[in-house]
């Protein structure tokens, strides 16, 4: 009798069991696969397809291959069909990145001290404070943005308060980039505070004591000990804030007055009033490509840091 003859029956016995687990994982994962397929991947393919389709005369589109949607981002088509460079959409893309970047920075600036403060509290108060940070999530985002309109708008809370203090009446802080930024920072803040808090919470408190012990004041301790050791949390928070901020629609539309557009509101306009689906889809694809580039760059940087001893 050879070895293989000896082991053959056992192998036969095991095969159905292995297939069972294989089948189970296939069927078990099927719902999430379907969900991902239909809700995420399929729409992206549809948008990708629409972005290279041809705009219909009265809105909609026809399935004729056409790169006009993409060329429109950079060029204006004249009456005679010649292409003329136009910076207006590039400016919107630039503004979008600027505002999203500013949102991320401001959120970081506020979130780090807040998270640090919460992490220093006794456990019972900590839970309450974390709950308070997440509290805005319980209210619809539209309502929260409207609340800001009430605060900043004409005859709003802030202008009337300033009037009481002797400033000229009828001031309005609405319908500009500052208003957009305020609302964006406000809506994104919890997304920054939570990951930053999680990483500060993990930080060994004796390291902070060691820094103070070695003549580091609060600022030195923050810069040289707390920030470097909580960097992963800061990066996570920055991504969570920056990426959705790039696609912001509500804030620029409601707070910015809709005239100073961001990519999100521009896309919405093309699918809505603009009736230029291929163009809207092309901008959406461009935005997605830029986000992907940003995420890949971040991941590569993180990987390089890991490799370094």
């Amino acid at each position, binding site marked *: 009798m050879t070895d293989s003859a000896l082991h053959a029956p056992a192998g036969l016995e095991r095969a159905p069991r292995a297939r069972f687990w294989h089948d189970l994982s296939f069927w078990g994962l099927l719902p999430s696969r379907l969900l991902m397929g239909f809700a995420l991947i399929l729409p992206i393919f549809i948008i990708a397809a629409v972005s290279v389709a041809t705009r219909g005369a009265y809105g909609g589109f026809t399935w004729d291959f056409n790169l006009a949607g993409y060329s429109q981002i950079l060029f204006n088509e004249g009456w005679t069909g010649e292409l003329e460079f136009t910076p207006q959409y590039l400016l919107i893309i630039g503004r979008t990145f600027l505002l999203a970047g500013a949102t991320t920075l401001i959120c970081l600036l506020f979130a780090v001290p807040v998270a640090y403060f919460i992490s220093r509290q006794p456990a019972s108060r900590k839970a309450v404070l974390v709950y308070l940070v997440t509290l805005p999530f319980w209210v619809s985002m539209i309502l929260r943005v409207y609340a800001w309109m009430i605060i900043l708008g004409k005859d709003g809370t802030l202008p009337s308060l300033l009037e009481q203090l002797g400033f000229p009446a009828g001031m309005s802080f609405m319908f500009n980039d500052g208003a957009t930024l305020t609302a964006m920072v406000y809506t994104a803040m919890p997304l920054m505070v939570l990951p930053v808090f999680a990483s500060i919470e993990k930080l060994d408190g*004796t390291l902070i*004591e060691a820094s103070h012990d070695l003549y580091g004041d609060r600022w030195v301790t923050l810069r040289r000990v707390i920030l470097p050791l909580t960097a992963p949390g800061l990066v996570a928070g920055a991504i969570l804030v920056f990426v959705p901020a790039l696609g912001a629609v509500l804030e620029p539309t409601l707070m910015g007055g809709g005239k100073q557009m961001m990519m999100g509101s521009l896309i919405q306009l093309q699918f809505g009033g603009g009736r230029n689906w291929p163009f809207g889809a092309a901008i959406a694809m461009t935005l997605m490509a830029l986000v992907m580039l940003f995420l890949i760059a971040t991941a590569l940087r993180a990987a390089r840091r890991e490799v370094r001893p």
Partner: protein
Amino acid sequence: MTQAKAIEVQSVSKHFGAYQALKSVSFHIGSNEFFTMLGPSGCGKTTLLRMLAGFESPDTGSILLNGQEVVSIPPHKRRVNTVFQSYALFPHMTLEQNVAYGLENLGWEKGRIKARVGEMLERVHMSAMARRKPAQLSGGQRQRIALARALAPEPEVLLLDEPLSALDLKLRQAMRDELRTLQRDTGITFVFVTHDQEEALDMSDRIAVLGGGEVQQIGTPTEIYEEPVNRFVADFVGETNFLDIEVLETLGGQATIRTPFGLDITVPATGSAAKGRATLSVRPEKINLGNQAQGITFEGRVTNKNYMGGYTHYTLDVAGTELRASRRNASREGDTIPLGATVPVGFVAGSARVLAA
């Protein structure tokens, strides 16, 4: 002692919620002293150390560092450095950077920092690993870097929070000698916290035994071991026999007592040992057996023995009272007293202490 006082702790008390960690503690630590705070966990020694570093502040009382009140001074402005129990090395910095950290914050110039870091790494035998990170080190190596980092800024006082407890036995013994040498060479006041009485006896110039948030006794290692002032100290530091006795008469530092096995003897007494019930403490190694028995002698029966190599521990029954004695095995045939034998037992009166009950 006429030497300068590096630290004065005056009537310091501290509560944590309802728990009283320190009850009006006062003592002083001399300059260039190796001072140890010894006690079981929860005795308040770590709280005291954290107060000296500035991480805690007392509810009442004051702390003076070289004559200056420091209670309101934050940790980063005190010329005091700490070696943490967990070492607390900065994991994202190299060993060099760790040692340089305090110097940079003090605003030393670059060249001076470089020289000092090199010198400190040399001193703890870690020069070859200057560019490594703490994660790549063994426990003993981390300990050395923590020491180098804390000593580099030439603090007025070095605080050590159970720095040897995470090391294995052999390494711990070596580090004791190294710490002692380092203290003598640098002349910096060391304040050492430990629950290990052997460490305390071995390294310290003076020891403060803490228990229940109070200073139980302060003295040299010999004073603490040989002349404990109360039952807590005698029990916590070293092994001892406690005998319930009756004080018949006291005169000066002496007391005439009656032992449970019917002897009337005169032995040294601490404090104001009043007439009546009290405790006699006799350490096992002070009780001699067989032909070595001398001083106050009586007879006892060996009920148990533990052969430890260098020593043998005997448990004796003396007229119904249990006594433990240890006997050095001075020769190969040293351990000759058999179990169950009745042998002469004796101790010198001066080596026993009468303690308040």
